[in-house]
């Protein structure tokens, strides 16, 4: 009995301390898991330890798609979190929700609650991706990646290649050597993201009409009518047949696995894969994704931001938004930005973070952290820094559905790209109806 009493006492004290003095709770939902999820929890812990008025409660909802679905379901049930992480493909949907009062734009929030980190504090490329058509920032930049090329330097050394390829032409020239030595020259983890969306940005080409949806609601994608894109896919198919490129199914990890196992020379993945591979793959480098010299005439253009932003959801109290404003300020501080950049490999998103990195000579100690920021802030692009196309998660599915038969020769490249255009146009039209 005594034992039970003492346990009860302990439980009681804990229940009091954990809810002590009724701190204002701020809910933050996210769609990362594993190591990246742990870092998010750590950020919240640090904020909670830094002051005693507010508690940020992070809740992982699975993948990006899961979190977006959960956030929407919660909103419909009137039970939405204050802050939610929504990925690049969902950006158009979130920006469109400002007018319905679902999302509070970052700039409005900053103005109302006096957040010290203002819009200008964020790197232009990243800022524009999550802005509305007037350039007003809606989403708060968070984990910003882009596609990069990882190279296994041991394999390259073994086959006598000294430097990593800058262009696809260079890759094509070295692929036979790598193949002959028994390695897979190239694997990549995401067709729609790497070889579609970012193919267009990397070559300074428009992907949809309406200026990538920035000037007008897009009605079609420009896949089949972009010669460079058709050429690229013909090449990919050729590589696939010759064994220069290995396709390992839909799953991200299955395509990354040969690179981790030291069987593939190059892998195209996300900047954020860096954190997880450090120490696992012995001698790898992180490089810009190649481009076709023949398409850009030797010029290199920036890729789109990948990853996600945090979005402020409507329907909570003043006091809670004040706390959220403090939290946004905390996350936008140079120290936290650099911490996140260092831990995960995601880009630093604030000017302050980058300045701090320069000051402490961060990139000398860890040069591979630099590729992502470099590639994102390349200049000279004449297309918008993103795309505003609704129903994009489904359009990615359409892309996937057509790539596989294109690769195994069931349909021609032209036919496959036309199918993609047709499927995408239907989905874009449907999205336009709901606006």
């Amino acid at each position, binding site marked *: 009995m005594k034992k039970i009493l003492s346990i009860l006492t302990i439980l009681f004290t804990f229940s009091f301390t954990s809810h002590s003095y009724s701190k204002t709770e701020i809910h933050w939902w996210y769609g990362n898991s594993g190591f990246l999820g742990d870092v998010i929890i750590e950020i919240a812990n640090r904020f909670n330890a830094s002051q005693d008025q507010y508690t940020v409660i992070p809740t992982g909802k699975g993948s990006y798609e899961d979190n977006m679905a959960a956030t929407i379901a919660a909103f419909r049930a009137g039970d939405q979190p204050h802050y939610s992480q929504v990925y690049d493909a969902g950006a158009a949907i979130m920006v469109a*929700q400002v007018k*319905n009062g679902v999302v509070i734009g970052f700039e409005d929030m900053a103005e109302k609650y006096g957040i010290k980190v203002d819009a200008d504090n964020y790197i232009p490329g990243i800022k524009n991706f999550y802005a509305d058509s007037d350039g007003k920032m809606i989403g708060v930049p968070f984990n910003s990646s882009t596609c990069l090329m990882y190279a296994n330097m041991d394999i390259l050394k073994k086959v006598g290649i000294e430097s990593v390829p800058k262009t696809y032409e260079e890759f094509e020239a070295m692929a036979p050597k790598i193949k002959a030595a028994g390695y897979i020259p190239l694997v990549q983890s995401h067709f729609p993201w790497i070889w579609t969306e970012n193919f267009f940005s990397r070559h300074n080409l428009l992907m949809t009409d309406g200026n990538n949806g920035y000037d007008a609601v897009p009605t079609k994608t420009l896949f089949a009518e972009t010669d460079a894109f058709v050429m690229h896919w013909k090449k990919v198919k050729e590589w696939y047949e010759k064994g220069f490129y290995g396709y390992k199914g839909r*799953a991200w990890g*299955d395509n990354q696995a040969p690179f981790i196992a030291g069987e593939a020379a190059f892998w195209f993945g996300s900047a954020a894969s860096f954190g997880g591979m450090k120490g696992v793959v012995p001698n790898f480098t992180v490089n810009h994704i190649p481009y076709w010299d023949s398409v850009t005439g030797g010029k290199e253009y920036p890729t789109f931001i990948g990853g996600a932003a945090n979005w402020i959801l409507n329907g909570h109290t003043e006091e809670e938004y004040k706390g959220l404003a403090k939290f946004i300020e905390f996350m936008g501080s140079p120290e936290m930005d650099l911490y996140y950049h260092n831990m995960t490999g995601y880009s630093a998103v604030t000017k302050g973070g980058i300045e701090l990195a320069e000051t402490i000579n961060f990139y000398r100690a860890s040069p591979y952290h630099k590729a992502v920021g470099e590639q994102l802030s390349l200049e000279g692009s004449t297309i918008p820094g993103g795309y505003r196309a609704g*129903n994009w998660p*489904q359009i990615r599915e359409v892309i996937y559905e057509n790539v596989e*038969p294109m690769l195994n020769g069931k349909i021609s490249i032209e036919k496959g790209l036309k199918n993609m255009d047709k499927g995408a146009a239907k989905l874009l039209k449907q999205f336009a109806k*709901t606006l």
Partner: protein
Amino acid sequence: MKKVQFKSSYSQYLFLAPQLGILLIFLYWPIIQTFRDAFTMQDAFGFGTQFVWFDNFLFIFDDPAYFIAFKFTIIYSFVITLITGSIGLLLAVQANNVMHGKSTYKTLLIWPYAIAPAVVGVMANYFFSERFGLLYHLFNNLWGFNWYESVFDSYIYVIIAGSWKQISANFIFFLAGLQAIQKSVIEASMIDCKNSFRRFWTITFPLLMPTTFFLIIINITYAFFDTFGIIDTTTIGAPSGETRTLVYKAYMDGFRGLDLGSAGAQSIMMMLIVLVITIFQFRYIEGKIHYN
């Protein structure tokens, strides 16, 4: 005989209320919502709802991916029903003949039934992984098996993953069916016919028809609806949506694509398909079955 009647005309409703409440909330309300979704179009957050008549249905009929999912679902349910039914029956007949350790066999064969489809999918993943999958390498050596490129190979993958657990369900019901057959009938047939194979097909199997019919319905429903977790943890529809069931496609469009209109229309189509299959079964097959 005395007629039993409630004094109050309300009390019966009170007793019915819990059951009716459950039906209304968990059955009729979602059905009404589905119809509402199917005939309207709205954005992801539920704004801008507008009545669009049959636009959502026209949209799915114009979608080649829908017909691929339809074709796959039909093939999948047919093959799963056939495989699980026949293997389940074979195992049941064998287990029924075992003299010693009957209950041990029984228990071991029933076990997989308790495993959730998603877990089965993850387990199948280990067998079909390109990196360390035993079956992947076995089949790959035999004919160059590669499930993320070949439609046929991906069918094999999801059929094996989907059948395994359901064999147990078939086994239990067939075993129960076998044990319910009267000993006297079996003994009489043994005197008349020496060939045990023939005895089985002319006497035992016809007597098992009610069980078989029941299992066909159960297996089809399983392949239609419960294999969601298996697809989601194995092929995710690869290659190019060829191994997506109708349920999986509705989920992808509704919850991943956030297009509830299309998902609602697909749900209604699914309801119609199941309705047609069930009516067909009860009309044309059940008539041929003898319930003792």
